[in-house]
């Protein structure tokens, strides 16, 4: 089991954002969380990644109870997330952005000098990561000057630089043009296929969700409405009702 949520509840005062949520993620599974606005998807993500503590319930990651661990400890354990609002290093080039992640993963950040061999190894990993994410031809461009879609790819690449076991993507295609969305979908599929990553993502675009996810969990009013394969979800009357009600 890569990730398991055990009766997780989050209350803000009287508001119940998430109620009694239980689900799990097998290694190499790619799974989506969907739901109407306000269904509690982002709160759930914050709890999984450690930005919010649950009011009740436990969260297990890779065989360890991580409920009380801060975000950075979960990152070191191999659980890395991206953010809805792009978080990159804007006035550094794409290659420099990724170099920071890779040097962090190699644990050499505090070194005031490195050998030629280490420098070459860092450069090699940066190149490999840019090749994987299709950023090679933008290596020397400032990350903050890239198109929105490319900035999102940089953020995903930055997450990948830490070589996560579990990748959490918060609305990876939000605000993207159609061709950018296609690019991101292809990237996520490639990561799953080539890197054998376990991926959990929140998404609004249903074509993306049904195009990638092996399993879909639907939240409504903070509860799990239903969880199943894309076919099961597509034919579920409750889901259709929730979405018709939510989007009207």
């Amino acid at each position, binding site marked *: 089991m890569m990730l398991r949520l055990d009766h997780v509840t989050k209350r803000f005062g009287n508001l119940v954002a998430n109620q009694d949520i239980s689900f799990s993620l097998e290694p190499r599974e790619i799974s989506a969380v969907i739901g109407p606005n306000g269904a509690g998807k982002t709160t759930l993500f914050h709890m999984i990644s450690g930005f919010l503590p649950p009011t009740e319930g436990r969260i297990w990651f890779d065989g360890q109870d991580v409920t009380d661990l801060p*975000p*950075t400890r979960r*990152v*070191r354990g191999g659980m890395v997330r991206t953010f809805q609002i792009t*978080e*990159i*290093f*804007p*006035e*550094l*080039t*794409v290659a*420099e952005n990724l*170099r*920071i*992640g890779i*040097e*962090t993963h190699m644990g*050499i*950040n*505090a*070194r*005031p*000098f*490195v050998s030629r061999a280490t420098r070459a190894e*860092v450069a090699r990993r940066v190149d490999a990561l840019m090749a994987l994410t299709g950023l090679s031809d933008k290596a*020397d*461009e*400032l990350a*903050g*000057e890239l198109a929105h879609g490319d900035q999102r790819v940089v953020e995903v690449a*930055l997450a990948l630089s*830490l070589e996560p076991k579990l990748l959490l993507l918060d609305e990876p295609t939000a605000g993207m043009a159609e061709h950018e969305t296609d690019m991101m979908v292809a990237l996520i599929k490639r990561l799953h296929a080539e890197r054998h990553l376990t991926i959990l993502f929140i998404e609004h675009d249903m074509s993306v969700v049904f195009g990638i996810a092996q399993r879909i969990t639907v939240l409504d009013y903070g509860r799990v409405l239903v969880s199943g394969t894309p076919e099961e979800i597509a034919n579920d009357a409750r889901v259709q009702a929730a979405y018709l009600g939510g989007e009207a």
Partner: protein
Amino acid sequence: MSGPVARTAILREPAPSAITAGIALFNRHRVSVVIWLLLLTAPVWLPLVGSYIQLGSQVLVFALTAMALNILVGYTGYISFGEAAYFGLGAYGTGLFLKFVAPMTLPAVLAGVALGGAAACLIGPLIMRRRGVYFAMTTIAFSQLFYFIAEHWNELTGGEDGLAGFQRHAIDFGIATLPLHDADFYYFVLFFFALTAGIIAMLLRSPLGHTWLSIRENARRARYLGLRTDWYVWAAFAIAGTLAALGGSMEALLNNFTSPQDLYFIVSGNFVIMVVLGGMGTFWGPLVGAAIFITAQDYLSSMTLNWESFVGVLFVVVVLAFPRGILGLRRNGRNGTKRGQSGRDQRVRA
């Protein structure tokens, strides 16, 4: 505003080739080559342009310190208005060593660096968690603390009158002696300036330097990568303080004198002005800023008692004309070529 038009023109530049990349590389090094040549020949050409060698030494001393401050201000994104504390402690450490311990110049330099460096290392943990204005205010508070100590501890520091009664001594290398008169003292300072520049260049190429940049660019993101940013800020503060102490030590040797004025927050402000004038986060910016500042000060103070107003006006004009400092051309990604001075309208896009 011509901004949008200029942007379009830039975007339509032809695709870069290996040749333009090569030229850009050469251009980058050409600046350094020219600067080193100018510095090495300064004792020859300074008198020809109506200046003098001591002024050149003074520029180097302040440039060294401003370059150190640039680590913190320009590369890590933390503004310190208290760098004079470590500059002044370096000066006192060297002066006190020469006066009370031994008349040996190099150990005295070490003593100054050790005193200022130790203070920066110890104060670092107390301020590294503060951000922005609070960080700046705390650095001022500590520098004023040292100022008042130096001013009131008459028996040791000479109080308000300053510490006199010491002087730099010739250095005996066995086979030769370096007398440390004006011209060779310039080269003595240039040696330490080069050492500092070398250390900073090395740091900026290292993972530590990359980490500083990431904190400047997006500290929240750096923390989420798992970096304990506070301690990297501490490292920047400690290294900047130690190198500033080296600058202070040179200042004491240059004047054979130091006083609480070297610890005063106005001096800290001057270092910040030099960095901003030349260009925060540019390698040679602080040197250019220091050269302009010292030259203007020297020239204007010979003409008017009110020279500080004119330096202030100069500063305002430069900052309005070059928001990123004189060398502060904004980086453009491709090939390291520089983009023009249109920092403000480029910001809008984000």
